[in-house]
């Protein structure tokens, strides 16, 4: 009996040893081949976007990433001579994904803030936006009601709209903290909750807000002048890429394609 057990054990050990030795061999080869490819062809950078942030970055009906920012980086990549792969990442963990090297940049309408700038580098600003507040058409709330802090406000987790409410309404004691629902993982779900009247207001950057409320019984009642600037976030340890992207953005904004893009995504007032 014991001999049999030892036999089985021995077989397992050998199998494991073989499996692991196999692992190291192949991974070694893979690494080598990746390196050679890098030398032969251009570098590929992985660009992280919020998959539900139209018109800047979103996934179209065919499942391809598209949008103002996506087209911008594709154009920049072509001019600056690198390849890009665009992947959607959960917005509230997009900066850690960048820091962990899962993506190489965030080009998805990210507002430049002090807190974020402590974690990552930002390119030159390429766009300016304000926050907007929307309500359900069945209600007659005004901006004064929004500012009174007595009503429930919905916002996507980790967005500047949520931060604005925290800093200007909650931290000042105007609004009780439980009136801010900043737990939505995507903005469309916050808009859905306004449609279901679970929240009284939603707050978000203006252009994606317009997209989110289109065709729904929701309307924008006011704008908050935050004058936020969008920039591309890049790892602090990657200053060369920052320079390349900065040059690319400067080039893009001087090109006629920049105006074409603005028209294509309906961003001219």
């Amino acid at each position, binding site marked *: 009996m014991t001999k049999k057990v030892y036999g089985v054990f021995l077989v397992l050990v050998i199998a494991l040893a073989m499996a692991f030795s196999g692992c190291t061999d192949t991974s070694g080869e893979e690494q080598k081949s990746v390196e050679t490819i890098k030398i032969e062809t251009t570098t590929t950078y992985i660009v992280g976007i919020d998959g539900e942030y139209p018109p800047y970055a979103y996934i179209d009906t065919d499942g391809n990433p598209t949008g103002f920012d996506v087209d911008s980086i594709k154009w920049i990549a072509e001019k600056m001579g690198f390849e890009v792969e665009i992947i959607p990442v959960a917005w*509230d*963990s997009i*900066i*850690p994904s960048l820091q962990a090297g899962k993506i190489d940049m965030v080009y998805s309408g990210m507002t430049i803030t002090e*807190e974020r700038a*402590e*974690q990552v580098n930002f390119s030159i600003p390429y766009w300016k936006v304000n926050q907007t507040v929307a309500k359900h058409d069945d209600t007659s709330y005004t901006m004064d009601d929004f500012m009174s802090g007595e009503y429930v406000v919905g916002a996507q*987790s*980790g967005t500047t709209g949520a931060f604005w409410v925290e800093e200007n309404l909650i931290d000042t004691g105007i609004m009780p903290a439980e009136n801010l*629902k*900043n*737990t*939505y*993982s995507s903005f469309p*779900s916050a808009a*859905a*909750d306004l*449609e*279901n*009247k*679970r929240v009284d207001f939603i707050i978000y950057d203006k252009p994606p807000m317009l997209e989110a409320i289109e065709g729904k019984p929701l309307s924008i009642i006011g704008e908050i002048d935050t004058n936020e600037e969008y920039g591309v976030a890049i790892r602090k340890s990657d200053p060369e890429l920052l320079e390349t992207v900065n040059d690319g953005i400067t080039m893009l904004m001087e090109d006629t394609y920049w105006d074409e893009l603005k028209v294509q995504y309906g961003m001219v007032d």
Partner: protein
Amino acid sequence: MDNLTFIAEILLPALLTGLVVTIQLIVVSAPFGILAGIGVAVGRTYGGKIPSFLCKVFVMFVKGCPLLLLLFILYFTLPSIGITFTAFQASVIGFIMCNAAYNSEYIRGAIKSVKEGQIIAARSLGMTKYQSIFYIVLPQALRRAIPGLSNEFIYLIKYSSLAFMLTLVELTGAGKLIATKYFTYTETFIFVGAIYLVLVTITTIGAGMIEKKYAIPGAQGR
């Protein structure tokens, strides 16, 4: 801000509020999950053709549907037909359905392990069908189902974190909000994980005690 003040003044208070919500979710869901599980198991084993079929369909539906999807349906889809649950209600209903479906399978297995001769014996003593189920079969079956049920209870503790997807700030959600705001992913998630581990450990010990206390006399070691 150094790490210790961050943990003591920001992280732990936030996690504590989240923990309260997690415990509320579990305490409300678990008893109904067990009761409904017993109902479904009995209905499936002893109910006539139609109740048995309905119970089978219910279990199939819940098993086949990811819990997250079920929660989304309860929260985001039902308002379109006029049923609007709060995030807490939707989560609890979803958890009870899921918990009941899996519990019913553990209980059904335990019911099947009770020899049929016992029902025949009970009936011959003049008990009705339901008397023999409730006084003879279930007391034995439920005891045998304890390990399975406690397992499902532990799952409930962990899948209660899905309530965050319906905007409810429970333990995981509270941790995620703090982690996002202060960029402290490692510290935060280590603490969140430790709290879940404590909850699960308490449950495991508790279930062991219940199992011992309600062990069928003379049936040990079988």
